[in-house]
């Protein structure tokens, strides 16, 4: 696989470590009343779509950036990649 790094261009996926669903960026508010239930959903449940999936890859043997990669899980086609910190600070989702 090749990951289209937003800064570095196409890079061998072997340089990356995969984490999973990008929803992991949205850690629940620990102060909310149903925090335990919210955290249980956050930690354990996944949409796991057959199709377009937004997911986190860490460029471990590269620039050490976390990326949000949009990829089709049925074809492995990659539709885009962004720096996770930009996504988070940009308030996406």
């Amino acid at each position: 696989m090749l990951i289209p790094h937003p800064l570095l261009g196409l890079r061998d996926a072997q340089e990356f470590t995969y984490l999973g669903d990008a929803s992991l960026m949205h850690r629940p508010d620990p102060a909310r009343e149903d925090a335990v239930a919210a955290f249980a959903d956050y930690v354990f449940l996944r949409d796991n779509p057959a199709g377009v999936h937004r997911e986190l890859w860490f460029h471990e043997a590269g620039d050490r950036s976390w990326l949000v990669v949009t990829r089709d899980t049925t074809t492995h086609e990659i539709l885009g990649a962004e720096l996770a910190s930009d996504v988070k600070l940009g308030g996406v989702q």
Partner: protein
Amino acid sequence: MTRLSKGGLIDRDARLRFSFNGTEYSGYQGDTLASALLANGVQLMGRSFKYHRPRGVFAAGSEEPNAMVTLRDGARAEPNTRATMTELYDGLSARSQNHIGSLERDLLAVNDLLSPFLAAGFYYKTFMWPKAFWEKLYEPAIRRAAGLGALSMQADPDEYDKGFLHCDLLVIGGGAAGLSAALTAGRAGAQVILADEDFALGGRLLAERDRLDGAEARDWVAITRAELDSLPNVRVMPRTTVFGVYDHGIYGAVERVADHLPTPGDKVRQTLWRITAKRAVLAAGATERHIPFADNDRPGIMLAGAMRAYANRWAVTPLKHANDPIAIFTNGDDGHRTAMDLIAHGARVLGVIDSRADAPCFGQYEVFPGATVTGTKGRQSLYAIEITRNGQSEWHSVGALGVSGGWNPNVHLASHHRGRPVWDDALLAFVPGPNGPQGLIPAGAAAGKGGVADALADGMQAAITALLEIDIAAKPIPLPQAENAPAAQEAFWHVPGKRRAWVDFQNDVTVKDIVLAHKENMRPVEHLKRWTTLGMATDQGKTSNISALAVMAELTGKTIPQTGTTIFRPPYTGVSLSVLGGGDTGPHFRPKRLTPTHHWAEAQGAEFVEVGPWMRAQYFPQPGETHWRESVDREVLAVRSGVGLCDVTTLGKIDVQGADAGEFLNRVYANMMGTLKVGMVRYGLMLREDGHCYDDGTCARLAEDHYVVTTTTANAGLVYRQMEFFRQCVWPDLDVQLISTTDAWAQIAVAGPQSRTLLQRIVDDADISNEAFPFMACRELTICGGLRARLFRISFSGELAYEVAVPARYGHALMQRLMEKGADLGVTPYGTEALGVLRIEKGHAAGAELNGQTTAQMLGLGRMVSVKKDSVGAIMSRREGLAGDKRRLVGLKPVNAQKPVAAGAHLFAKDASRDMANDQGWVTSACYSPHLDSHIALGFLEDGDTRMGEVITAANPLEGQEVTVEVVSAHFVDPEGGRLRD
């Protein structure tokens, strides 16, 4: 000898000796083992898998099902090697396979007589009674007969390599279409790789008598090759099989660098290339199929196209006796080409048996229109065939028979991403479908355009199209004048009859087996394959699958496309495990990390142990010590009574800086880090977000906005990754910068009551007295006359102890210096074994306790999970399953101090029966404590914290041991911690 007197792409001046089954033969440069054996009149080359039928060569390429040999001898023996793909070299030695006794008199040929009992799926229906006999009798017998070739059982002595290539256009296959594609792209200046599995470029152009620009095709091939070789932007890779298509334009290819040489010499034998291609042209050609008929598997029967290739490229006929007549059986025009080529080479042709009633004739030979072959004779060499026309049969003497059932485009790579090929009614074949891998364009015969003129034009057009997609403008090139050979054919798939008609030769699958599969409702094509083993042999059914589908379609009344194909999977042809495994099978299998004092420890005679990627000194045997325990006991006691030195560089170190560094660490550690004073260290516990313990270590605050944290050796990379995750993905608003510094510092633990005394001798001017530098202090200072260092007063052993860090290049010298300066103090280097004993004595958790399944409470660290703040894992650590877990880390002391406790033993109340219901925990770590002169252990025990003093049993039924132990505090040594603080 059946070598033709002239012609062929062989160098008749270069005679090569070789042996087959111990008999010496000779051939020429340019031969394959198959062509050379045929030239020597050898028809019988192997035995089939199941019935051990005598078999000769059937094809001329990588689709060969029959002529499988074990090539070379000794450790280089290579089983299941296709004679058709083996380039002849001087001294080649090969043996046939899968027979007991000689190839000619294989004792297992008895299986053939038993074939009625061995029909498709027979083994699923029997061998079930009596029950025990399957494993004791039946299966061992089946296993004895299994397999084809044998492993040498020796390590492969050759070297292998891997590499990466990048190009604009990868052209797979160097026949007419591939050459024109490569030339088009090469002239356009694109970066081009042209790969072909053959040792000579040209593909079928070398096997046919096509004329290009009025000359022999091989002339055009040579000129084209020369031009491609001259272009700096084109890499021509013969002997290279592109075996798989992976995601995003990555292709796997194996280059057989030295397989054509007697031994590789200073070359690698093969190289695995991972080719990243922006676009690719699949010009892999087509594979001829046969027509199953009665007894169609005899040596002397082969594909008609292969027969042509042998005659045209290698100047041989597949006969045992040179002047025997040859017959052709075909359902189309293509078979006639073989007859004409053979005649042109002066061979005797009996005629062409053409299933079509209106069969044409293209030359001076007899045609049997509307006829089929319905029988053959000749157990080890064909000598007669039965031709049936209008119900009339007659036998004819022949020495060989060519069979042509049409050509299947080699769609394999185009289907590696599970896109299915589509049926072409005109072509009577599957062609690549629309859902192939992105960027891969089939061309030429692989796309169903097998005529030479068509293939040349299609290859060129494919290159132009592919390059246009990546913004490279390629112009059409002048193509040589060529003609498409007549290729009309009819759909004629097999000759019905009562005798066995082979479909899959290697695995002995016959039309009858398909009929049986149909009868038993094994009709989906995957069931057919699995029930009969069709297409599962080493040739992966290249010559058999489509014919089998056609037979099944006929039985079910469906069309062939409705019947469908099985899935095409990599590799296209078998790839050696050695080349995929890359070569470094020994000590360099995975890289080693060496500590800064590794060479010093080596010089001291240390024993080393693998700890993940690291090599660590395990213990330092001294003269006279005969058992590791003696060394370890000595090292442990030295620390407890004097001072010891241990390289602890392997612990991960992460530099954390920024205005929000303290807040960040508050969030990733369970306990509070933001309140840590500058110049102090705190033990840190890290949870996973699911609330279980993840890692532990220390946080040292070097400045208001600067911490150095340590991790366990095993988790260094993981903790760094997790911290970056939180920094970038969860809290990017915090001002924090992280970088790993594990390797930068050589860190040496100086532990024991004399450690301060020793350190005072190397510290330049800093005051490290207990008052100035108390327990859990840290400081940047200089030692040994100005060397930058960091000193931490932390202890893993429970003794007064420090860790001193210096730039890694000085670790070796620092260790030497400490040894010198501490000689009078009895300074002693210690390894991981003593480190382990010391920490067990002190009750510190390590890998066996922090195994990812345990909680802070279990470790007795529950109060470290701060409730004053949120941190990773804090919320989930309060779930009932974790909060209610009553297991606690305890110390275990055998009642008989000299009786060892085994880590991994399970804990039981003294009189409880030894079963799961009464299982109350397990021993995590165990050792002999020289300090206490007793074996000791740590373990997790139900309600352990309330059971001090209870005598329980550590049961280890696996090794037949039970040890009575007393439950004690995990802190065997100095539970009050006074030694740390003095």
